[in-house]
């Protein structure tokens, strides 16, 4: 990093690490437009989701009711824990809640855990690959390893959960019942404008708060890491200090990534459960 530190100010260093590898689908608008895709977010989340599915698949492929292997036992413990949490919060009949909770919890944990890979390892590797494989300036190659620090990823999950919420509500109450509740709860039918406004805010705030909570935590965590690595550019003492601080923040971050994944999962299950309740 030393050569970079000579060229980059701390601001530039942080901005470089907060940039996405975007691929524009419409050559006219540019990478900041809507018709672009964050390749890093897509690749990382897909690979991690694949790792999750493969890990589970290895456990279920030889799943036995007899004495389980170590990996099967571990996967069972994790999934049973999630299943228990989901069952505690959701009392309906849908068989989809537990798989949603499993996917959310495990996937988010894996994506959050990418924070533990030191950012410059990834940035240097990505720069090297960009320079020698694709022939571009390594300083213009960005690679954000934490998909949950990209608001697109968290919003995508929370919006999917939002559609599931609508689906659950329609399944439990029917279109008529759902619309009726939108207009009449909680103040009765003569206050329907207030009811509709209140319900709309309540409904729409749920996916936004879900997504923003996870995004904010991971983005903030990443920036703290980046600040610590900036300190690492300040000579031997700075490197040592950044190692100590990095270790401390990393240990604390273990708590955060699990807690945020758990909160996202639990709130999703609770929201799904709430949508089935009649008011």
């Amino acid at each position, binding site marked *: 990093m030393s050569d970079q530190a000579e060229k980059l100010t701390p601001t530039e260093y942080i901005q470089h690490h907060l940039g996405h590898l975007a691929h524009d*689908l419409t050559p006219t608008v540019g990478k900041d437009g*809507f018709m672009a*895709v964050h390749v890093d977010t897509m690749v990382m989340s897909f690979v991690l989701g694949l790792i999750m599915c493969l890990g589970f698949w290895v456990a279920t492929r030889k*799943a036995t*009711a007899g004495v*389980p292997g170590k990996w099967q036992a571990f996967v069972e413990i994790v999934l049973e824990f999630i299943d228990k949490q989901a069952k505690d919060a959701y009392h309906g009949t849908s068989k989809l809640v537990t*798989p949603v909770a499993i996917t959310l919890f495990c996937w988010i944990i894996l994506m959050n855990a990418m924070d533990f890979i030191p950012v410059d390892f990834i940035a240097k590797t990505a720069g090297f690959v960009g320079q020698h494989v694709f022939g571009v300036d390594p300083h213009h190659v960005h690679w954000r390893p934490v998909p949950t620090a990209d608001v697109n990823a968290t919003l*995508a999950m929370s919006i*999917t959960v939002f559609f599931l919420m609508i689906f659950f509500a329609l399944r439990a109450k029917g279109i008529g019942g759902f619309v009726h509740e939108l207009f009449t709860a909680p103040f009765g039918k003569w206050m329907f404008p207030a009811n509709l406004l209140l319900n709309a805010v309540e409904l729409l705030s749920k996916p936004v708060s879900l997504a923003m909570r996870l995004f904010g935590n991971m983005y903030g965590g990443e920036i703290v890491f980046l600040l610590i690595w900036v300190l690492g550019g300040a000579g031997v003492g700075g490197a040592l200090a950044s190692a100590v601080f990095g270790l401390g923040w990393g240990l604390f971050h273990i708590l955060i990534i699990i807690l945020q994944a758990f909160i996202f999962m639990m709130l999703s299950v609770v929201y799904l459960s709430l949508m089935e309740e009649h008011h």
Partner: protein
Amino acid sequence: MNINLTLFAQALMFAGFIWVVATKIWPPLLNAIEERQKKIADGLAAADKAKQELADADARVADEIKKARVDAAQITDRAHQQAVQIVDKAKQDAIAEAARQKAAAEAEIANLSSKAKEVLRSQVASLAVKGAEKILGREIDANRHRDLLDQVASEI
């Protein structure tokens, strides 16, 4: 935080992963878990049953032991009674034998003593005659004094 197409791609990906977990991963694992739960429940029930059976067997064994003890006590009682009877009978036999032997001995003693008396009696008669001869200095006719001699002999 610019929002772009990544959002839809991610949402589709998320839905895909949910589908994979919901169809390929969770059901077989849940099956295994539930099967194991059933197995464990069966095992526990079997253990309870075995425990119950063991308790029953223990009770039966205790009954048998009690019965055997009562039997043994009865047998010892009977043996005891029999022993007492045998001892009693032996005692009575011994008493009877002793009485018989005593009677035999007494009869023999009486017999002997009467024989001795006879001998003495006859000897006393001749002694008395001899004594009287000595006293009188002459022979006493034994035949003439038979009555007197017999009287003396019988008084002995």
